[in-house]
């Protein structure tokens, strides 16, 4: 509560700082603003930003330090932070003069803010690992790791004594994601190419947002669609005639429906990237006599490749993390099988179901969710390193 009020006051102080900073700088210029080293607004921002950052930094540091001491009153921390902010306010105000290099200072501050923002990703990772690692440790004291990593059966059980091998789950995850990408990548990529290269701007302005809506439909709708429409259809027209099984929930069902959901991830992002390839490159290729499609295939797409790979990776990531479509489309039974018309399930589904189930929360059956989470985390990390390597190797930088 106190902290919130502190921020209210801090922001007010910053606003004051901006105004007084500007006016002092303008006064120091003595009527001729061109004698100032930096623009007026940089002087204002200088005071405001320094004050804000000092206050925020102090409060963050305090909350970090105080978590090691029991019962440290918040008022002390807020007081210290307020003093720090005031001191910096006075200091930075005092430094304002005609020759003060305010722009360089502000840019330095902004850069440190940018660094701070990008380190949030690291902090998130650390937090994710921290929030799961202890429970994972407890899981492995109750369940042998060999059985977890190399076990080929998954059958949790209320009475204990469960088989919790993750291989069938991993297989299901890879299989479903693979089929989903098989659907989403060609459709998404062709849609992107068509929209950015062929379509008139009217078609584009309608079709692009429409396809983007696909990403916004709650996955439960897709799940029901898979369960009620796609599943029985695939069973009646493909699985049964081909003698591949009787199951209406299958990897195929979930994969296809998920693929549809992922189309906008590939198409929309790729479209922006393709659109941003310089027109000169197209003109050059067309001028040499290439047809439109040859230009696209041999010039535009390679130039846009890093971005397209990024889009595909994003789609793959969504496929791995999806729950609802898999539960309703592919079922909840863990199975190791090559048949795409069999019911299977994924790691994510089991993380959710073991966490939200009715099993004893201190038992391996629930704790396994954390182990699965960490394992999936490490695996996708590996895949991403691989992807980065591939992008680096094949990337083509133009201009």
């Amino acid at each position, binding site marked *: 509560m106190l902290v919130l009020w502190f921020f209210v006051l801090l922001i007010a102080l910053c606003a004051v700082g901006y105004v007084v900073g500007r006016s002092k700088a303008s006064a120091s210029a003595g009527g001729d603003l061109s004698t100032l080293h930096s623009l007026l607004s940089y002087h204002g921002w200088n005071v405001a930003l320094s004050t804000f950052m000092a206050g925020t930094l102090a409060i963050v540091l305090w909350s970090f330090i105080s978590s090691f001491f029991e019962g440290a009153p918040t008022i002390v921390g807020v007081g210290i932070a307020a003093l720090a902010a005031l001191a910096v306010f006075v200091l930075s105000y005092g430094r304002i003069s005609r020759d003060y290099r305010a722009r360089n200072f502000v840019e330095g501050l902004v850069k440190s803010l940018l660094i701070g*923002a990008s380190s949030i*990703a690291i902090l998130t990772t650390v937090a994710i690992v921290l929030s799961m690692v202890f429970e994972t440790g407890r899981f492995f004291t109750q369940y042998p790791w060999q059985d977890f990593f190399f076990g080929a059966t998954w059958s949790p059980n209320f009475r204990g004594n469960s088989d919790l091998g993750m291989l069938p789950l991993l297989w299901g995850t890879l299989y479903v994601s693979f089929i989903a990408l098989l659907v989403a990548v060609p459709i998404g990529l062709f849609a992107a190419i068509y929209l950015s290269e062929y*379509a008139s701007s009217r078609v584009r302005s309608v079709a692009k947002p429409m*396809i983007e809506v696909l990403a916004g439909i709650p996955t439960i709708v897709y799940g029901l669609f898979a369960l009620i429409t796609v599943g029985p259809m695939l069973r009646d027209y493909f699985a049964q005639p081909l003698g591949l099984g009787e199951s209406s929930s299958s990897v195929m069902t979930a994969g296809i429906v998920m693929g549809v959901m992922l189309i906008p991830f590939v198409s929309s*992002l790729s479209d922006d990237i393709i659109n*941003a390839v310089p027109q000169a490159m197209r003109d050059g290729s067309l001028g040499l006599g290439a*047809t439109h499609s040859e230009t696209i295939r041999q010039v535009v797409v390679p130039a846009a490749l890093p971005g397209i790979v990024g889009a595909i990776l994003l789609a793959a990531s969504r496929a791995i993390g999806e729950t609802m479509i898999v539960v309703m489309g592919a079922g909840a039974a863990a199975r190791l099988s090559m048949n795409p018309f069999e019911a299977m399930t994924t790691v994510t589904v089991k993380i959710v179901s073991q966490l939200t189930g009715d099993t004893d929360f201190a038992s391996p059956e629930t704790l396994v969710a954390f182990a699965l989470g960490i394992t999936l985390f490490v695996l996708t990390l590996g895949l991403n390193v691989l992807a980065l390597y591939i992008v680096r190797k094949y990337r083509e930088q133009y201009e």
Partner: protein
Amino acid sequence: MTDATANQPSNSTGKTSLFVEDARTKKRNAAEARFKFYGMLAVATGVIALVLLLISILSQGIPAFSQTFMRVNITLDEQVLDPSGNRDPEEIAKVMTFAYDPIINNSLQSLADELSAEHPEVTASALQGMLSKASKGILRSDVIANPDLIGQTVEYEFLANGRIDGYLKGRVDREIAALDGNVTPEQLDIADTLVEAGKLEKRFNWDFITAPDASELRPEAAGLGVALLGSAYMMLIVFCLALPIGVAASIYLEEFAPKNWVTDIIEVNISNLAAVPSIVFGILGLAIFINYMGLPNSAPIVGGLVLTLMTLPTIIISTRAALKAVPPSIRDAALGVGASKMQAIFHHVLPLAMPGILTGTIIGLAQALGETAPLLLIGMVAFVNNYPESMFDPATALPVQVYNFTQRSDPAFVERASGAIIVLLLFLLCMNLIAIILRRRFERRW
């Protein structure tokens, strides 16, 4: 295409006129046409999938926006509500909703008497079964708010029971009613009679959008008010945090960061975070924001923070791709006329990258708006009946409400789930519209 490039012997023979296409040109043109056709096919697939999904949602969800109301005169009996007769609010408050059952029953008896001359099947108990169970609560709160009503006869418009509502919407028929334990075919006959008498009426129902959720016994009273507020709070937080942080992080990584292993780690980290199942962010939210930082359970502030962390990778990845796509000549030109690096980026590169950034934001926000799993562990998948007054009060979210509605046993919740999806999509549309308009303004080719 020309003789100079055509080294193949097959081409050199048949080539006579520029107006006659040779075999290779034909092949290339055919490939061109095919390529274009694939593109159209792909766009059509996406649009058809969308249309199919929308049709199924709309056809199921539209009825949720109207509701059946029943007009009845209620005599608020003093004997039951305030036996002492001194209108003491505390004593009136002691009378629980259960005591209002006989009051409603007695009042309905007079309606039954009025109608039963022509329609003998109309009885008070059948009528009472046709009213929503929410009626008692409305009566009680009215009486407490205004004790002078006691002893008077007041005209009320109560919600009709979900099954009767289903009958007027065509979901329930006599065959179903015969099998259903919660409604009888006679009640459907009575409903017809009441419609004729002008006592039963179906009309647009704002309460579906504004009212809080209701329990499984009263599907007709359930609304989306709390969920809408919760989602709005969360989107505000996500937009205010994820967009600036995401753009800032991308600018640093793309424009300033030295290409070394630290940057590589950050880069891999970000794409890895995009692959983390959303429920894991829920685990993080529970462990860090609730258990460690002591933020309240079920509150939109926690939900917003969790969703911010979840959408950041999406926004960063698309922003970086967009920044990467801005030609280096733009930067060089800006630097050439004396801008600092920071100015070149903020004044020239960033505006050009804006369409891509906005696309990423649209997709990220759409994902955040539609996500249920991370909210499960931080307590937002819940039954919440009070409107949140701030970001720190318990609330639910629209996808949560959809999820909750689809889990409930009463068939009347099916249309409400689809109705909730329609509201969710409209919400998304409003958010997107702004981004799309902005995107169109920034979009350009060079």
